[in-house]
């Protein structure tokens, strides 16, 4: 399956780059202003390192969704079907990576689709799309 991966030692935590990956994700994928609307989040830590919140397509949200609105596509990426979504936000609450997003303007939540726009935007080549096996569903 396609998965967004970050090589944290290469990431500067947005110190110099101005969070270009997040800006690109928010603007180009979700048409939102500001990096808070992105489906990934990069943070500069006080000790000089960087931290990231990324969806790894683990599929926990697929298991908990009561409306069956989350499914893997052909590439293994977890996609949300907005027609089926009832806006319960269990996917947000049950995401251990805190990677499921919500914008107050929309009823439906959203998430990383492993589209790679952030990869292209990153000036440090810290992000990549990798192909990894789909993990077995787990009891949540």
């Amino acid at each position, binding site marked *: 399956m396609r998965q967004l991966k970050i090589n944290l030692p290469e990431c500067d935590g947005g110190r110099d780059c101005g969070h270009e990956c997040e800006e690109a994700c928010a603007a180009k994928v979700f048409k939102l202003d500001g990096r808070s609307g992105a489906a990934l989040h990069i943070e500069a830590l006080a000790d000089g390192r960087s931290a990231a919140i990324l969806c790894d397509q683990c599929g926990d949200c697929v298991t*908990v969704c*009561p*409306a069956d609105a989350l499914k893997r596509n052909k590439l293994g990426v977890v996609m949300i079907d907005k027609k089926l979504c*009832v806006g319960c*936000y269990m996917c947000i609450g049950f995401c*251990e990576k805190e990677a499921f997003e919500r914008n*107050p303007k929309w009823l439906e939540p959203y998430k990383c689709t492993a589209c790679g726009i952030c990869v292209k935007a990153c000036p440090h080549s810290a992000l990549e799309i990798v192909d990894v096996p789909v993990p077995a569903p787990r009891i949540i």
Partner: protein
Amino acid sequence: MTPNQAAPALSPCTVDYSQRTEYHEGLEAIRAAHRVLREVRFSPSLPDKGYNNRTLYVNLGTREVLEKPVTQLMKDLFVGGRGFGLWHLWHAVTPATRWNDPENEIIIAPGPVAGITQYPGSGKSLVVAISPQTDIPIDSNVGGYFGPLLKFSGFDALELQGKSDRDVILFIDGQKGIIRVEEAPLEPVDSHVLAEILTRMYAEDEADRSNISVVCTGAAAEHSLIGMLNFTWWDKRRGCIRLKQAGRGGIGTVFRDKKIRALVCRGPVVKADMNHPVDFETLAKTGIKLHKELRTLDDSQCKMRRNGTAHIVEIMDAYDLLPTHNFQFGSHPDTHKIASYVWEARCSQMTSDGCWYGCSMGCAKGADGLVLKTGPYKGHMVTVDGPEYENAAGLGSNAGVFDPDYLLELNFYCDTYGICTITYGTLAAFTMECYQRGILNKERTGGLDLTWGNAEADLEMMHQMARGEGFGLIAGQGVHKMKTIFAANGWGDAQLLQDIGMENKGLEYSQYLSKESLAQQGGYALTNKGPQHDEAWVIFMDMVNKQLPTFEDKAEALYYFPLFRTWFGLLGFCKLPWNDIAPADNGSTSEPAKIPEHVQNYLDLFTATTGMKIDRETMLLQSARVYNFQRIFNIRMGKGLRANDLPPYRSVGPVTREEYESRAERYDKQMLEEIGVDPAGKPVAEKIAITREYRMARYSKLCDAVYQRRGWTPDGVPTMARLAELGLDVLPEVVEIVQAHGG
């Protein structure tokens, strides 16, 4: 097995759903036999701030269909849900009305917050009727999609009155704006078959099945007084309907007496904001907060997501609270065979099990792949709801049944036959004790060998109930009437039958052994509808945690908790997400038993939905109006006084020698330390009598304290001062009843 011992490893449930028995082959023939008896058009609407401001009235006898306005007085005094139900019922009946009179109503009302999808446990319907078992109002809080879909079709409540002359289905199409009464002559009777067929029949395509909810009952509801109603939802993953039950008090019996085969609601496609709340953001944030609590804490707290309420089976056993052999004892060596880890392994775990969208507590577990051994569906593979704790205890330990397969089968047949699992559990346990004591024997039961744990005889009694024959017909009358029948036949001593027959006001006890908790004795017998734990479950606070040492403490708990818990039923909430999960820091709050943070959540949800700002005091006031109104309703119907709050002695103390001797050390110690009598050298019969006199006097003292705290007279009548405090003195009929009874 104590709560701290590790559970043995059991293989997880893996079931091939495609092997489950399918039931929809005859659908087209069944549909072809339908005949429209009445069709009415209406304008579908969505609620505004939680209210549609109209209710739907259907008379099954005259086929009259009416829209009624929701008045400001209804909202101010009764809020919604159970409050609306009781208000409608009050106006429908007279003091002379009995359950099978045409004017008796079944009212289904979801409440103003019901239907939000963000907060766990927010899809409940409240069902109200005059009960065939108690002759007073019964109320039942039930999941499934019917209530929310009814609301999103345009109605805050559904009133059903009158009696049809033939079997009918009431169909409410909230997408097209059609209400139809259809003659339904060929429908199957039992719920797991009927609901599958109707869901497919009324859905326009496969995707539409999620928008359908069916209310129905089963064969045993027609031949007993203990019928219940199943409320369904379509389980997409399993590809079958699921059932939740409005169980207590025989509402399913009333339903069939009106010749309603089913109610079917087809609502619109559900979205996040269909209640049109004033502050959606607060709903979203509050819901996500609780989802996170459940994700991080449920495994170390109640494991509701794994086991549902059955997580407490072994805990109850360890504390001597698990009803065993008709509440004689509180534990059993075989409890491990029906403990929570057994159900965790039997229930499918890799799915979503809420009975309404957004319930991340997900306690509506499904035991898939049960192959039935008895009855009309012998050999069928079915999915069974639960078992919930009440079912594991009531159908299991209380009857001495410790075989998980048989317990699931009893659970399945209760559900599909449309009878209350709690009621059936307690009445079956009663018949088995009568059998043990020679009050019943094979001749009197028509050949049923009702020895403890004989699950096949237990099931056969239930099948008889469904077929309307044999001893099952007598058992289906419930414990209250069985006591009279057995005594009248000269089969047993009337006092012994009274002592061991676990009912109060005509309703069977639910499944907690209250002998060692005075507060819980009151929690049961001082209820409005009859002994059901949903009003006041204080047994742990009182007996285990010792948080209620004085009469005043107990009275305060029996003031606060019944009112607080009533509130769930006014709004359309489930009680479980209130205290079957607690914030990590709950223990350090000033009142951990009340779960203050979650109480605040509820206040926030109410305000965010309706726009009405309330605090904890107003919350209790809202409940107190409805609670006291229901008490006065009971008085109006001929009960509701102190005499009706008297419990059977089995719920208060040891009735028999075996019970006393099973805990002789405990009872002797209490006699010495609490009663001040030295038990040494006294025969058991004398010690039982001394204990009884002491405990009944103590119960009476509790009544005094509780009545005083609730603002009631010593006879249990709300006073005029209390009525004025609550604003109920604007209702002349209510005032008249109170004054006539010295309130």
